[in-house]
């Protein structure tokens, strides 16, 4: 049983954003599915799994300073959970996604949390060495070779905190794994600090933290 509450401020903003998407659909871009997507991004599963990563990673990282890069950051929930654990201004948090609408909507949801939201495809990032950690909770949506490329491009001392799942029934899930251990082994990390499983309602989420 979780002992924390979904932030009503964030949920309220998600509602206002949904209203904005609906208004836009009447006179401009008609994309009502964004409402469903925004709702998904703040639902219980995503809130739980992002918070889980931030809590676990906080135990290992050990500093108040650094530069975190969130890959496939969607509408910003992962970056927000990191900011709650690292509230100081000396922790720089970047959240990138290749979908341009993610940047726009992430600013609406989490614009006052000192997070740098960007539209960027991780494969276009030549150099990840400036970052002290690469966080990616969208591994199930990404090619395995792209995960390896991220690990190769990062500083050898930089952390990775990756999540995937075993929910294969969605067409956008192209890189699921049956167990956390197999996922960890697939990444070929030099050092693994943590391999864990979070049991959700009808699937499992897997997390690997290491270098």
């Amino acid at each position, binding site marked *: 049983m979780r002992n924390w509450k979904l932030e009503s401020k964030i949920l309220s903003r998600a509602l206002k954003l949904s209203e904005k998407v609906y208004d836009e659909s009447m006179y401009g871009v008609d994309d*009502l*599915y964004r409402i469903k*997507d925004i709702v998904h991004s703040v639902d219980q599963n995503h809130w739980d799994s992002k918070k889980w990563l931030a809590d676990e990673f906080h135990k290992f990282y050990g500093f108040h300073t650094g530069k975190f890069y969130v890959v496939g950051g969607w509408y910003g929930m992962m970056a927000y959970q990191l900011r709650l654990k690292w509230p100081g201004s000396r922790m720089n948090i970047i959240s990138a*996604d*290749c*979908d*341009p*609408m993610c940047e726009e909507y992430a600013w609406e949801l989490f614009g006052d949390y000192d997070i740098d939201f960007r*539209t960027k*495809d991780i494969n276009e990032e030549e150099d990840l060495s400036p970052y002290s950690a690469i966080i990616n909770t969208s591994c199930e*949506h990404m*090619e395995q070779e792209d995960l390896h490329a991220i690990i190769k491009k990062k500083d050898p001392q930089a952390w990775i905190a990756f999540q995937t799942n075993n929910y294969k029934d*969605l*067409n*956008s899930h*192209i*890189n699921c794994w049956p167990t956390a251990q197999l996922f960890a082994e697939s990444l070929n990390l030099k050092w693994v600090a943590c391999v864990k499983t979070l049991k959700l309602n009808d699937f499992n989420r897997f997390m690997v933290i290491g270098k």
Partner: protein
Amino acid sequence: MTNLITVKFGTKYGPEFVNKIYNDIKDQEGLTKFYCYTDDSYGLDEGISVIPDQGRPTLKVWWNKLRMFDRNFPLSGKTLFLDLDVKIQDPGMLFKKNRQITFIDCHWKQGKLYNRLSNYDVKMNSSMISWDADDPEVHKIWDHFNTGFRDYYLRKYKGIDRFIVHEDFNFDTFDHKYIQSKKYQPDISKWTYKPVITTYEELEVGIEDLI
């Protein structure tokens, strides 16, 4: 002259479904070459030209049909695609020319639902598609899919039919007389003409249904 192509990914349909279509049309005068785009060519008849999985981006099941519109896909000229659950009734009529990319008009889908502004389901399907593989307008479909929105499209749309309609691509539809929908038009005993194909959309199909 026209190429015919089928797409077989995953395990739902075995090679016998491809071989059945091939044997139904291999002696037709209008046929240039018979292709199968597949991740597993085991069991396909010798006369079938295999186009292996084209690699990134990884796509699941029916989304691989969209790959046929890639300008780098190894096809040229007039092309006809058939789903594996289609029964050919009149092979001689399959190779009639169409001006632009052409799909099946699901004119049997009637009711207020389809007139809603926010309607999600569409009144076309891609069980049979005719197009020119060298047509730059067709290549735009694949290019449009492969933007930063690709993952979003995979979440938003159940399949390529909805993607093509809701992303506003232009297309023609085959003459209604060409198509029988087994689900919506099960009895064609009073038809004064013979359909070219029978589609089994949304129905479970065994090879025995297609003989």
